[in-house]
């Protein structure tokens, strides 16, 4: 059923209608600025551009952002692993991070979704791989 357009309570003039457009961003979990996929319809005022959410729209946005978030985590993890692979073997890295053998391969092939925590660790290590891997090794060795 198509519902009639609501009036915009921001400007009081425009009509709020679903709009699919590129270049919109939202905070989602750890990412303060994640691009909202173009195919997501957000009720938007045709006069002032204010964006509105009801439960249905929020649910659809949440689902789309979650998918985009997981894709972004995978992409960042892959970049970090790539940078780290020049300094440490994948198996050694898995051991240092307490991951099961083969986990990073599965992650790289898209079989696993990395957690934000793991991506944070990989990102921190990849900023200065040689020094930080050495520090991590020393930390675990320090019994």
């Amino acid at each position, binding site marked *: 059923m198509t519902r009639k357009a609501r*009036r915009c*309570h921001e400007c009081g003039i425009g009509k709020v209608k679903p709009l699919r457009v590129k270049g919109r961003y939202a905070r989602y979990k750890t990412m303060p600025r994640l691009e909202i996929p173009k195919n997501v319809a957000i009720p938007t005022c045709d006069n002032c551009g204010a964006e509105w959410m009801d439960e249905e729209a*929020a649910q659809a946005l949440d689902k789309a952002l979650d998918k985009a978030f997981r894709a972004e985590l995978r992409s960042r993890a892959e970049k970090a692993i790539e940078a780290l692979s020049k300094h440490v073997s994948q198996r050694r890295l898995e051991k240092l991070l307490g991951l099961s053998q083969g986990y990073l391969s599965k992650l790289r092939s898209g079989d696993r979704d990395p957690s934000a925590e793991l991506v944070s660790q990989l990102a921190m290590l990849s900023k200065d791989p040689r020094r930080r891997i050495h520090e991590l090794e020393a930390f675990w060795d320090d019994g």
Partner: protein
Amino acid sequence: MVACGKLFVQRTRALDFFSSPREALATVKEVLVGLELGSFAHSVKLTWDVADVYGVVIEEEGWYLKITVDEEEPELVVISFHPLERPLRTRGGVIEP
């Protein structure tokens, strides 16, 4: 209205302060259901509507809430819901940012 999900919330002035839209809506609902007279600050005349401003404290932080009722729909409209930028005087006292 809130209990029935008759709620319309502005995204950039309310929902973007939370880690997900779902979490934001859940918090907005919780705050609306628990609103008390002491949280009321003042009313403001907008182009078309009259909105009520409230100050609430969430986890020791002051928040600004501006709502109105759309009688045509009918539904509760959350125009703003964000951390306070400056102290807000409510009936129950001053809420600090």
